[in-house]
């Protein structure tokens, strides 16, 4: 019996937190929102810390649930990201009437991602995926009096329903071919039968939608722009990261027989994502839209790493998601503070930021350096390992395209840095006082960018988990 609790520890703790919050909301006593938010953040810290204490691995519920060291580590990464986003959203939620519901929905999607990560059949995978995407649409609508926010939610739920439809059709074709939804059975039966391949391609379309790889990216920019900043960062880091983890392990284990096919699919998706993401990022004026396209092109690089299909490339993907989490969340922390205080979200508004807010400027600059992949930030090593993993296949053309795209991306990341440091602005963002919680979150992100970059332990640890 105790092994049950140990294996399900991360999921059970999260469920417990969800129910505690539900009862806090339902209680007749009116809680002070400051108390509630501090309480939730403490719970999230406990949730993150508890994840590191247990090492049990095994399966439960027949084959419905599995866990091991790597999955635990990936879940810890997601927990960390959620905590950081929660800290960044503190000031926004303080004024929001439905702060507890925000956490209820966010933690439910996190729970869905955990089950999706731990799934060992397509049924659990699909249920987890739905739990991870339907509440997100409600979250995207959380700027309740803004029309853009409702529009974002509408676009998200429509395109996510469409993607789910494709995915379900793919699953049903695969089920028809194999006669089972278990990953082990599918791995054995995977063949080059065209009908099976069609199901597999539809499955990849479902993956592609979630990670917003081109050509499944059309929802990304509008949803990112309309949703509240905290939700945008959650979508771009946590939701995307969890799907990348699942996709990497499913492609390399379940569909190992179809390596040739999926290598080509992933390579095409990678090239398209990098080029389209970069070209559109150059001409964006809104900084959230800009980061949406930048995240699309980052996914292109991650897909290059994924295409390597060996232990090195798998660990490079996990490592890069960790690095990407720190870099992107640092950038979003700054955007969140500025948008919360002044409502400004255009790149032109960031001109002359250095004169008034040097600390924020440096945080955003380092985050952008890391996203662009400039040494000694962690982003450099992340991209380096990704390209190394991809190069192990010997397809150097792909690597050259990726390298060229890194140069293009450098241009538009530096454009923002130039605007902040060098351009003059008559009405810059006034000097902002930053409260403690975004400060902690920024400090953790900065430390993460530096530490995971300089100390090679992080990559080696992930590599040892995979061995």
């Amino acid at each position, binding site marked *: 019996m105790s092994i049950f609790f140990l294996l399900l520890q991360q999921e059970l703790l999260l*469920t417990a937190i*969800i129910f505690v919050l*539900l009862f806090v909301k339902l209680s007749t006593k009116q809680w002070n929102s400051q108390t509630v938010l501090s309480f939730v953040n403490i719970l999230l810290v406990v949730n993150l810390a508890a994840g590191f204490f247990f090492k049990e691995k095994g399966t*439960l*519920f*027949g*084959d*419905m*649930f599995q866990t091991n060291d790597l999955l635990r580590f990936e879940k810890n990464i997601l927990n960390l990201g959620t905590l950081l986003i929660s800290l960044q959203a503190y000031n926004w939620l303080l004024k929001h009437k*439905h702060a507890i*519901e925000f956490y*209820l*929905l966010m933690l*439910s*999607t996190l*729970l*869905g991602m955990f*089950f999706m990560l731990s799934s060992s059949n397509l*049924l*659990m995978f699909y*249920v*987890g995926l*739905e*739990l991870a995407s*339907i*509440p997100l*649409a*409600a*979250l995207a*609508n*959380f700027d*309740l*009096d803004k029309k853009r926010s409702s529009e974002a*939610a509408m676009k998200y739920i429509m395109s996510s329903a469409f993607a789910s439809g494709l995915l379900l059709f793919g699953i049903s074709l695969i089920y*028809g*071919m*194999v*006669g089972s939804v278990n990953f082990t059975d599918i791995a054995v039966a995977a063949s080059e*039968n*065209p*009908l099976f391949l*069609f199901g597999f391609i539809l499955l990849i379309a479902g993956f592609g939608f979630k990670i917003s790889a081109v050509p499944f990216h059309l929802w990304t920019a509008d949803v990112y722009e309309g949703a509240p900043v905290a939700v945008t960062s959650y979508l771009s880091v946590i939701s995307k990261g969890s799907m990348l983890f699942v996709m990497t392990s499913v492609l390399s284990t379940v569909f190992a027989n179809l390596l040739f096919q999926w290598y080509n699919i992933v390579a095409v998706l990678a090239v398209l994502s990098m080029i389209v993401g970069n070209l559109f990022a150059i001409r964006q004026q809104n900084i959230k839209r800009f980061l949406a396209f930048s995240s699309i092109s980052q996914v292109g690089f991650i897909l290059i790493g994924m295409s390597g299909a060996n232990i090195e490339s798998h660990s490079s993907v996990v490592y890069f998601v960790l690095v990407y989490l720190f870099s992107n969340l640092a950038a979003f922390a700054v955007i969140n503070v500025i948008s919360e205080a002044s409502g400004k979200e255009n790149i032109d508004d960031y001109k002359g930021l250095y004169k008034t807010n040097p600390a924020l400027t440096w945080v955003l600059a380092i985050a952008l350096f890391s996203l662009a992949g400039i040494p000694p930030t962690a982003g450099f090593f992340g991209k380096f390992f990704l390209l190394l993993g991809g190069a192990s296949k010997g397809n150097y053309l792909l690597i050259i395209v990726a390298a060229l795209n890194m140069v293009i991306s450098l241009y538009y990341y530096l454009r923002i840095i130039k605007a902040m440091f060098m351009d003059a602005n008559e009405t810059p963002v006034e000097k902002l006082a930053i409260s403690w919680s975004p400060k902690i979150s920024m400090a953790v992100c900065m430390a993460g960018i530096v530490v995971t970059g300089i100390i090679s332990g992080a990559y080696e640890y992930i590599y040892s988990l995979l061995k």
Partner: protein
Amino acid sequence: MTASQIIFYLISAFILSMGVLSVTSRKIFRSAIWLLFSLIGIAALYFWMDVQFIAAVQIVVYVGGIVVLIIFSIFLTQQSGKEMPKAPLLRTIAGALAVLFGFAFTFLLIDQYGFPAIDQPFDNDVARIGNAMLNTEQGGYALPFEVVSILLLAAMVGCIVIALKTKPEEK
């Protein structure tokens, strides 16, 4: 062609034509009613397959529950008598082509390669479905069942938050 096959094609034609009508109708309330008929057709298909329990669930949940909800929400939000604008011709043609291509592609693939594991007998006893739903051992579905209930909870919370939203002051 046997009688059973003829019935199958009749039911399928009914489902598809109702589906097409529900998409092409320009009055939203009519769309909902066509959808209702399409869902009843699917229940008929389940009866044809001899899975009475699932057919009953289909009727109770979709026909009795979801379509009624849809109609309620139409009455609460939309002007149901109003005609919606016609779709542009180009979009209609593109949509029709996409449907045609998708149908032809899938049909040819299934026709040529088929599914290997058909004609397996399966036991659709209600008692067995109930046991499998709460079984935690191999072949049990307790975990997805519980996860779906959390999904429903989260969906309800999300709906309430969105629906509770205070309207900006009327001008």
